[in-house]
């Protein structure tokens, strides 16, 4: 049985994360629903790779994890030739030849590098959307304590991924802080706040931040939608005559982009302008993720108390300012480099990767345990000394010559010697 672990459902779609949605769409279209299960585990630590979507293949005793959409595609197409998208094996377009393969590669990379940042902007960076919709959707699906720490972390990484688009102005919180700082500088700082004249520029009169960034948003969304519209035209599939990998990724992205019940729905409004894309999205969204799709959901098993303790420790370690143990996870991520490339015969590429990551995580855990042990034993000794249970004798050194401190005439006058 194949298990696909993803972030849980939101916005009427099976997952809140577009990459997880894409993997779901791929499995839904290629594998019969009695041969795989969909687990909304919401836990990146479920696999040794710290990433979702994660595919678990094998039985309970020996299994392999495959993470990321691309790896899942290449795994299914190489190891499971029996699964097909339509009538052809996953990821091949035999009738399109080299040109089709080149196009597939290019458009997949295009969706990934241009489409995902747009969703990041719309769902995470835009303050209105994040505070009213995304944050509550995330806290609905995430268990405690992750529901406190992960949304902020996801927002941070979304901000980084989309900063090159130059639209951080959508993040009202950060912009307002900057404006306040500017206001309190220079001459205007001397004037009491109640007496200041509000500075009205044309852009600030336009209202919401999405309105202010309107022109830039138009350009950025057109850069993404126009090439796709040109590729799709009136066809039923992006490439070839059958549903392919590209369609799976596109339906995931476009379905999430078409979510219109947001306070700032600029992304779905932009999609409305492209008739072919809009029509295609409506049709395929319902077919892939709707009630008719009949996704093989499986409930997440209840967390054991060890998992809960692990989660609490992880959240504390990653959000505390002094993250000695926490940095070992984030600052030194696993680097699967030259040393790990020694191919062992009989072990697949995926298993090799997994072993490497497991070892890495084991090392990190050892570091954490050592640090935790040091800190707690130091604390214990401190408490014992404070309570007087333990007395420490400091080695004393006798000074050979006592230093004479003199304060001169004033000292003798005041009686200091």
């Amino acid at each position: 049985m194949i298990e696909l672990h993803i972030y849980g459902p939101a916005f009427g779609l099976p997952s809140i994360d577009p990459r997880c949605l894409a993997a779901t769409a791929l499995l839904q279209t290629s594998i019969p629903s009695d041969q795989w299960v969909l687990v909304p585990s919401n836990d990146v630590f479920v696999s040794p790779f710290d990433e979702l979507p994660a595919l678990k293949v094998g039985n309970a005793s020996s299994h392999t994890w495959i993470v990321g959409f691309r790896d899942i595609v290449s795994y299914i197409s190489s190891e499971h030739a029996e699964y097909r998208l339509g009538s052809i094996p996953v990821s091949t377009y035999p009738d399109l030849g080299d040109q089709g393969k080149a196009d597939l590669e290019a458009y997949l990379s295009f969706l990934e590098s241009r489409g995902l940042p747009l969703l990041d902007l719309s769902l995470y960076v835009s303050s209105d959307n994040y505070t009213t919709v995304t944050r509550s959707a995330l806290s609905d699906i995430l268990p405690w304590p992750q529901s406190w720490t992960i949304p902020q972390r996801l927002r941070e990484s979304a901000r980084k991924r989309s900063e090159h688009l130059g639209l951080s102005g959508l993040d009202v919180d950060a912009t307002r802080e900057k404006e306040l700082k500017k206001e309190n500088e220079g001459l205007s700082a001397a004037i009491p706040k109640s007496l200041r004249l509000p500075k009205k520029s044309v852009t600030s009169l336009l209202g919401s931040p999405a309105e202010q960034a309107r022109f830039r948003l138009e350009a950025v969304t057109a850069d993404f939608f126009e090439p796709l519209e040109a590729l799709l035209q009136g066809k039923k599939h992006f490439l070839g005559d059958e549903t392919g990998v590209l369609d799976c990724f596109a339906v995931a992205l476009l379905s999430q982009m078409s979510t219109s019940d947001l306070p700032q729905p600029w992304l779905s409004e932009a999609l409305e302008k492209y008739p072919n894309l809009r029509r295609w999205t409506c049709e395929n969204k319902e077919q892939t993720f709707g009630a008719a799709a009949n996704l093989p959901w499986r409930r997440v098993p209840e967390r054991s108390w060890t998992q809960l303790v692990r989660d609490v420790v992880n959240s504390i370690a990653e959000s505390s300012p002094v993250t000695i143990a926490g940095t070992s996870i984030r600052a030194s991520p696993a680097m699967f480099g030259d040393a790990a490339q020694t191919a062992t015969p009989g072990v697949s590429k995926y298993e090799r990767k997994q072993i490497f990551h497991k070892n890495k995580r084991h090392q990190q855990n050892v570091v954490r345990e050592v640090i935790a042990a040091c800190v707690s034993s130091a604390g214990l000794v401190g408490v014992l000394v404070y309570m007087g249970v333990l007395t420490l004798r400091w080695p004393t050194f006798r000074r050979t010559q006592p230093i004479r401190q003199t304060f001169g005439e004033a000292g003798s006058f005041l009686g200091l010697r």
Partner: protein
Amino acid sequence: MTATGPLSVHHEQISSTRVTQSKQPPSWFSLPAPIRAIFDTFPLITYDENELPQRVSRSRSQNTLHMFALADASDDVNLSPNPACLKWQAYLLAKRIPFQTVSANNHASPSGALPFVLPAVRSRKEPQPQAISSSKIQRWAENQGTTEEKTDLRLEAYMSLIDQSIRNAWLYYLYLQPRNFESVARRLYVETASSNPLVQATLAHQLQAAAREQLLRTRSFIDQEDIYQSADAAFSSLATVFAGQKFFNGSDAPGLFDVSLFAYTHLLLNLAKRERDAPVWTNEALLEILLRHQSLVQHRQRVLDYCVGT
């Protein structure tokens, strides 16, 4: 300013009054002895002003591209060893826009990133024009009367292969491949910036951390095999779409797409030349991947010939 500037004159006056005062009985207004001693032990020297660096352009009548450049470049046209700068340098060369290059660093740029263009000033009275950041160079060049490129929407998709797969592979290959970092990146970016070992160590660490952070934006781990594989796939896709054309846009002159690819392929091939003591790759994994796609190697030569005209 010379050594006998106004400040030092002032100091002489002070000392002369002090000398005359010391002969008089101390009054309430004279300086107390310990403070006077301090002033006496520090002779006031006025150093000359620093000269402006030689490379600062004095002629404002020419367009100036500020970019990262090596001082002792062997080529006649000093091509930048940084892909982002080389892309726009090659673009301006290909568009036949006259310009001069000036070596600069990120701190000199208004936006904090290189390259940027300072447009020419026609008369002395004109105020200094606004610097043009790299994202606006294309529009600026089109305003200079070059032919506007027709936008090919399919090439937009292929552009993301360069921006994503090839760029990631470049970042890994240059900064995170330990041997290449020592032999190329350290020599290009660290040793040129400072001679202080402490500063160098910090800078090297910052560079590697920045590259790592870039790669971790989309994945939670860095996998060399994945990175090289997707670069290979990107190169072969580009080779397929290129198939037999002179340049990607099908015309006789390289366009933005050509120079974007050229920026990476040229540097990969150029830093493999073993000549004098130029920086050279010690690990050739990515270079070997590129060499498998000979049509891209020939494409690089064509762009180079067109731009540099050798």
